[in-house]
């Protein structure tokens, strides 16, 4: 402890280094866990106490199914539900997730309560009146608080017939009345199967409240919702199976009697499905956050190494007094653990704070790409905390082991004699080189196994081996650089030559700092290059696929919800002055091989005429019309890779009119859905799904018509029918890239933290080097070197460290980008990424790294130059 106190700043740097690594890891875990928990909580509220659910997975289904379920002999009670998501035009980006419930059948299942504020429950008769009044609405208190609303205020909601004012009559409390529940359970013997907390996952209920449920949830009468929002059919039927009867058995009984694209299953399976869906996205964030921990581990290595250098005499004294080597090792490991634990504790605290900052952007990304989720609560998983503690402590132990062992093996006489330290790493450079080659081969082999046999998570192993492989190359490369530069500058720049000499002689210390720097830079270059390549690929694809002049869709699209466009609006758009053609687009989600995928439809023949769609198997103008005529489908490249489907395969597709065996006519590049996309011609879709809904329209202007004039016309004419977004071609491209950048914004945070940790590493490393060379610096000063000359020697060496780190980091970054693009991406997402190198960024990077490192080195260099010369040279 005294050692820490004497080296307060350094101890602080070490603790901070570990803390930042843990911060990133913990924040990502919290955000991921909160997203899942929030979604589960919302499922808990929507599904109520049901243990069986009938759902169309996004598509509404015929109300006739309700009596079928309700009248099943094993079903105790059932209730229908209509769900719509409606934007709030007066609050940008806000929406309501409206549940239309049947007040009569819903009672045994409901998990919400109406209050008049302050948790005062509403009289049942008034509640009934509220639910049947189409002009009243109840909002959750958190939403009201955030939007500054109270009971009695009016709020405008978008409906297909234009904005509609509703009066906030009550507050909606998302939870369930425990006393009623207890009574019901007593009288009927019903057991709670839905809200019972999963011991592994923790509970979403806090007292009576369902914590974390979407604050945008609201309740209205089912008929009102169907009428107000033109939402015919049912979104869901919720049921409670009689005690003693199996929900799975009932599901198996009912499933054959429902349309092919309607599913009967326990509601918790929906949550699991969503977890699988966002799993790859979340796993990637977790893997990237671990890179920061790796950089932190390098820092800990240097930390312990510093202590070993500084306390050689102490080690010598202790050893000469009879302390065993293992006792010496334990001392250093224990000290490293103390700093590690402090770092873990601080890191967990900072992680919670960072999670609060990241949650919004992650929530938006998941909503845009996967499923609508609104995260208002941070859920701290005990597993995440335990993992952070475990990883932090394990990382510290592993990183500290070698220098601690080194300390325990220092010969006693040498330890008591402070002079120039011997360079051991020089002897092992060949071993390091071949170790690096081995690691790179392992990276390649693991990548191949991951791609061809799986499991997918092996692809991260490939990235790890690649990073370690390049890190292994650091000592031989440093030595080669030192040998190359050695003596070349002596007569013209003696300071550089001395710096080169130091650089080559301190591989044991410099290598670790450079390895940390290489890892951090590799992460920056790897992610940046992958994103750059991805962006370029998307740009090319956009140029081919987005060629219309004006795009119209419901405003809810911006929050990730695809609502239908009213027929009147479609007609207005089609016949708008200056419009020569209109492309109608519809998108739904379907189940395929147990996974949720997107299915889109548009007029193939028209698309061939108006756009430059690419089909990999041949000319689009031949394949698409044939597919339209013969009722074939096309699948996106990501779908093809994930599902291992090729052109010519026949796939079973569930439609409203039954399962159809459809031939794959070809594959095409697509960047709209990570889940995978199937396209089918509009006419066939309407025939098979019996769905005339349209989600967006692309309008093509006549040669001399103004796109702006069309937009202005549409804004005026469609306003009475609801809220719509009307984009020009340029604005839509801008929006696409905005969403693209938002998707990767969390990774930028991870990169930044990695860079900060490695910057700490450079400062720490220099302070070690300065300490190791006190005597040498003293001798230089005694020989007449000025303070400025000593500073320059240290800055030259720093520049060398940074330059080697930058160049190796760029090389490793390119390798990492290749693994991210062609191994990890292919294993998890299947996007087609065409390689593009961000030359400007990469060519400027070494300059920035060297400059930043030299600035970081300034203070230790100044301290070194100002040391007492007599004291420094006296250390014999």
């Amino acid at each position, binding site marked *: 402890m005294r050692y820490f106190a004497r080296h307060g700043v350094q101890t602080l740097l070490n603790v901070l280094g570990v803390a930042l690594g843990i911060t990133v890891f913990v924040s990502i875990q919290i955000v991921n866990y909160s997203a899942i928990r929030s979604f589960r909580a919302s499922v808990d509220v929507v599904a109520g106490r049901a243990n069986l659910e009938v759902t169309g997975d996004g598509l509404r289904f015929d109300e006739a199914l309700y009596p079928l379920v309700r009248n099943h002999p094993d079903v105790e009670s059932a209730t229908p539900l209509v769900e719509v998501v409606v934007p709030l035009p007066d609050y940008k980006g806000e929406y309501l997730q409206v549940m239309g419930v049947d007040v009569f059948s819903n009672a045994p299942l409901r998990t919400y309560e109406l209050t008049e504020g302050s948790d005062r429950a509403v009289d049942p008769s008034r509640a009934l009146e509220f639910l049947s009044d189409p002009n009243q609405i109840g909002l959750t208190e958190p939403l009201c608080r955030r939007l500054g609303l109270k009971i009695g205020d009016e709020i405008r909601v978008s409906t297909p017939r234009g904005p509609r004012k509703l009066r906030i009559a009550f507050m909606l409390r998302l939870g369930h009345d425990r006393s009623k529940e207890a009574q019901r359970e007593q009288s009927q013997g019903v057991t709670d199967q839905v809200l019972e907390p999963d011991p592994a996952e923790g509970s979403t209920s806090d007292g009576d409240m369902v914590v974390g449920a979407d604050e945008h949830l609201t309740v209205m009468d089912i008929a009102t919702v169907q009428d107000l929002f033109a939402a015919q059919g049912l979104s869901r039927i919720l049921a409670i199976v009689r005690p003693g009867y199996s929900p799975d058995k009932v599901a198996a009984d009912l499933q054959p009697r429902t349309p092919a694209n309607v599913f009967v299953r326990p509601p918790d399976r929906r949550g699991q499905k969503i977890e699988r869906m966002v799993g790859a996205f979340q796993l990637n964030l977790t893997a990237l956050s671990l890179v920061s921990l790796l950089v932190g581990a390098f820092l800990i290595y240097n930390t312990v190494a510093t202590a070993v250098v500084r306390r050689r005499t102490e080690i010598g004294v202790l050893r000469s007094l009879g302390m065993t080597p293992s006792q010496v090792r334990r001392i250093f490991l224990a000290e490293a653990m103390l700093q590690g634990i402090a770092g873990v504790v601080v890191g967990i605290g900072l992680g919670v704070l960072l999670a609060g900052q990241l949650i919004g952007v992650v929530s938006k990304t998941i909503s845009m790409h996967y499923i609508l989720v609104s995260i208002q609560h941070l859920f701290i998983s005990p597993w995440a905390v335990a993992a952070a503690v475990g990883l932090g402590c394990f990382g510290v132990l592993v990183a500290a082991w070698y220098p601690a062992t080194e300390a325990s093996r220092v010969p006693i006489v040498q330890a008591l004699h402070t*002079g*120039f330290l011997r360079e051991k790493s020089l002897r092992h450079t060949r071993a390091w080189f071949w170790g690096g080659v081995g690691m790179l081969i392992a990276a390649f082999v693991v990548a191949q196994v991951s791609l061809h046999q799986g499991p997918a998570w092996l692809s991260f192993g490939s990235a790890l081996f690649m990073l370690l492989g390049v890190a292994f190359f650091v000592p031989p490369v440093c030595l080669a650089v030192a040998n190359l530069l050695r003596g070349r500058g*002596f*007569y013209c720049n*003696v300071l550089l*030559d*001395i710096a*080169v*000499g*130091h650089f*080559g*002689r301190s591989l044991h210390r410099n290598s670790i700092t450079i390895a940390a720097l290489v890892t951090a830079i590799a992460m920056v270059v790897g992610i940046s290059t992958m994103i750059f390549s991805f962006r370029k690929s998307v740009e090319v694809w956009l140029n081919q696929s987005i060629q219309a002049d004006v795009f119209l869709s419901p405003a809810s699209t911006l929050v990730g919800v695809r609502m239908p466009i009213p027929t009147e609006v479609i007609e207005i758009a089609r016949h708008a002055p200056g419009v020569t053609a209109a492309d109608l687009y519809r998108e739904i989600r379907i189940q395929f091989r147990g996974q949720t995928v997107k299915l889109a439809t548009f007029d193939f023949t028209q698309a061939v005429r108006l756009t430059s769609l690419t089909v990999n198997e041949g000319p689009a103008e031949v394949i698409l019309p044939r597919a339209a005529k013969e009722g074939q489908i096309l699948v996106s490249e990501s779908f093809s890779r994930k599902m291992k489907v090729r052109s010519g395969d026949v796939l079973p597709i569930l439609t409203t009119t039954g399962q159809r065996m459809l031939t794959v006519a070809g594959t095409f590049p697509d960047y709209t859905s990570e889940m995978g996309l199937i396209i089918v011609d509009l006419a066939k879709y309407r025939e098979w799904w019996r769905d005339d809904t349209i989600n967006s329209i692309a309008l093509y202007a006549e040669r001399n018509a103004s796109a702006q004039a069309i937009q202005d016309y549409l804004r005026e004419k469609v306003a009475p029918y609801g809220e719509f977004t009307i984009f020009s071609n340029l604005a839509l491209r801008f929006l696409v890239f905005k969403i693209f950048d938002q998707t990767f914004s969390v990774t930028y945070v991870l990169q930044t933290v990695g860079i900060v940790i490695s910057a700490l590493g450079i400062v720490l490393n220099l302070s070690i080097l300065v300490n190791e060379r006190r*005597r*040498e610096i*003293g*001798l*230089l*000063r*005694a*020989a*007449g*070197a*000025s*303070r400025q*000359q000593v500073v320059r020697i240290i800055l030259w060496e720093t520049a060398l460290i940074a330059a080697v780190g930058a160049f190796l980091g760029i090389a490793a970054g390119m390798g990492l980008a290749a693994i991210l693009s062609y191994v990890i991406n292919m294993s998890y997402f299947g996007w087609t990424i065409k390689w593009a190198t961000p030359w400007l960024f990469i060519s400027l990077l070494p300059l920035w790294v060297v400059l930043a490192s030299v600035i970081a080195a300034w203070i230790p260099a100044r301290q070194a130059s100002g040391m*007492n*010369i*007599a004291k420094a*040279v*006296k250390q*014999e």
Partner: protein
Amino acid sequence: MIRIYNATKSYGEGESAVAALRGVSLEVPAGQFVALMGPSGCGKSTLLHILGGLDTLEKGEVYLDERPIHRMGEHELTLFRREKVGIVFQSFNLLPTLTVEENVMLPGLLSNKDVPGGGTLRERTLALLDEVGLGKRARHMLHQLSGGETQRAALARALLLKPPVLLADEPTGNLDSEASANVVRMLRELGRNNGTTIVMVTHSREVAGMADRLVQMRDGKVVDDPGADTPAPEAVSAPASSSAPTA
């Protein structure tokens, strides 16, 4: 001419302070070879460091050819070390990353000035290496030299810029008796040839016996100086610019 008057220096603070020099006064005429002897901790190395501008005094005055070293600032001290003093330490006083030749040339390269008396830096270096018997070892790295050879290289480096003063801190501490005798003989000869004043710290009476004058120290004081002719405080001929002694 080196003049030291009432040199006082201690390490540490308060009650734990240890006095290294307790009012040492000494005068060394130009060209004299003086050996400082005494038990460990008597202050002889501290005195040497003060003379070399490596450390500073708390009290007292030090002059080299009437220039007050004790008043020099950081920059002046650097120039002083470069041009006026050559220092030889017990061991490890050369940079292991440089060759013998480069090590010897180092002060010249750092000062970026011509060699006093003409000739190029390289010529002067090779000539000095020849003088110390290392002419054929110029391109060798340090680990290829013996202890005596290393110390001779250090001696060459110390004399490169023809400093008026050569300070040697136990230059034979790590050498056997034969090598010690060689190094000190060389030290004396080179000093005489160049007219250099030499102050050498040693524990060895044999080595000290090769000096012109032997000064004994104990507990931070000069206790025996047979050749002493140390002037009284009022007799110190301080230069006009210097202030009067403070104690």
